[in-house]
């Protein structure tokens, strides 16, 4: 049985990654999960300088999901490299550093610094956080700006470069093509869906940030649909995410076109979610006589008349 997949030149022993922001810097889950058993660890989003994040309350539960507005709180690339990366290097697992900036220069600066650190296997650019200010949102919602920022980062790194896309756009395939044209080695989607919840007794928003990003099983159909749209629009591998709770959900994403999947909110519900999902994928392969997991990628059966 072959579970290994290739993402932009990066060989992963299985197709299960951690979604950025849901697995800390890896160490938080090391007592529950053998980190070496994962396809890759994608870190909490990093910026050139530390970020304080948003005021609380930062999360609220919603039907089959949750809203978050953490605000990209992080310790910055330097401290990550110094304090967190040595721990991760002990494990036989590729570390993908997720990063962001508030300007093209900051994106470039963070990518340069991370690329010089030994022990980072790949980079994932976050151009799609829903909890940033309006000016920032153009990175992930205007294809010309996406092209510009990805091109700039591409020039300064030889590491496999993944671009994480926002679902909060009219045409996600257009955004994926802009990233691919700018030199991205893979795209990952979806980031959270912008949402909002109100306490009707106090008439106050339930999040201090007012709006936040929706995640969990509630958004899975959106993610599956968008992966299918992007899979047909680009040639680079797609990493699917959004509400994956078990092996079957992961298979659903792969049938839609994902080469690999990222597990996020499920980690909060079940700390062993990632390895449980790897086991679930194996069970599906055994039950269906599948020898190579890549063989089901985009295996959705459909006809043009179905449209």
């Amino acid at each position: 049985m072959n579970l290994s997949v290739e993402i932009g030149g990066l060989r992963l022993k299985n197709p299960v990654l951690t979604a950025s922001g849901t697995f800390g810097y890896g160490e938080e889950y090391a007592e529950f999960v053998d980190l070496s058993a994962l396809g890759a660890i994608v870190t909490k989003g990093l910026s050139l300088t530390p970020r304080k994040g948003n005021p609380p309350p930062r999360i609220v539960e919603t039907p089959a999901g949750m809203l978050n507005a953490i605000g990209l709180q992080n310790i910055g690339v330097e401290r990550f490299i110094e304090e967190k990366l040595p721990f991760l290097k002990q494990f036989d697992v590729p570390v993908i550093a997720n990063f962001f900036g508030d300007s093209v220069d900051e994106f470039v600066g963070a990518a340069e610094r991370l690329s010089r650190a030994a022990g980072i296997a790949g980079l994932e650019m976050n151009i799609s956080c829903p909890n940033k200010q309006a000016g920032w949102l153009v990175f992930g919602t205007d294809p010309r700006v996406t092209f510009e920022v990805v091109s700039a980062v591409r020039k300064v790194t030889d590491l496999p470069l993944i671009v994480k896309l926002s679902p909060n756009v009219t045409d996600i395939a257009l955004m994926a093509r802009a990233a691919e044209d700018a030199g991205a080695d893979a795209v990952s989607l979806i980031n959270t869906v912008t949402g909002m919840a109100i306490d009707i007794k106090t008439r106050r928003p339930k999040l201090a940030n007012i709006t936040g990003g929706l995640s969990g099983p509630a958004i899975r159909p959106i993610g599956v649909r968008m992966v299918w749209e992007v899979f047909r629009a680009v040639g680079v591998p797609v990493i699917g995410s959004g509400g994956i709770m078990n092996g079957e959900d992961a298979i659903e994403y792969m049938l839609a076109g994902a080469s690999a999947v990222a597990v996020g909110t499920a980690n909060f519900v079940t700390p062993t979610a990632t390895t449980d999902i790897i086991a679930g994928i194996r069970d599906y392969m055994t039950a269906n006589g599948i020898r190579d997991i890549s063989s089901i990628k985009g295996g959705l059966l459909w006809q043009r008349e179905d449209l």
Partner: protein
Amino acid sequence: MSRFFQAEVTGNILLSQTHNILRITPLKPHPSPSPGQFYLLRVSEAMDPLLRRPLSILRWDESSLEFLIRLKGRGTLLLRNMPPGGCIDLLGPLGNGYPSAGDGETPILVAGGVGIASVYPLIGRLGTDPILFYGAASSGDLCLLDDIRAVTSNLYLSTDDGSMGSRGNTVERLAAFLDETSVPKPVVYACGPEGMTSALLRMLRERGIPGYVSLEERMACGVGACLGCVVETSGGYRRVCKEGPVFKARELGF
């Protein structure tokens, strides 16, 4: 011993319309908690409600753990209705509990509402006949009084509606007590609703009394990864699940 474990529900005692005690028996050896620590309980196998519920540890022995639950929403309703014999999974013990009192210090325990669950394990562990201020909205919200009275006679009850103990809030009751009593080196251990906590912190600051306060915040992972449960402290944002839930009173601004 893993902090993520399965357990059988071995008891569910309804105390009132709004409170119950859930007793569970872990199926495997599990790490022992300390006062003030908490667990995340999965309330349903379904995807909705999705997140675990954080609950302070009330009582424990080698074979079981007990949690005091106040009915608040869908999650606590499921925990109230959980039948004995069922299975539940837990994550814990989590966070940092209350430290012991120093030499010559007089611990004063302060509990508001269901905050008694967090403070309760201290009652038998911080010296003999400890001082406990315990307040709630109404007499029906005061739980475990017989058990508490068996351990201490220094119990000061108050209710907002005056239906039991003195009428008014716990912090005012404590302030009056401190005015009329000479307490050597008092140190406060407290858990309660936000209103009580902020009034208490203000009072402690004004009087220069040290203390430890357990905080509550909406929480997802419980292990420090999601950064969802932060509170503002003198050292910046701190995670209730990891650096807390018990904080030094002087670190908290309010």
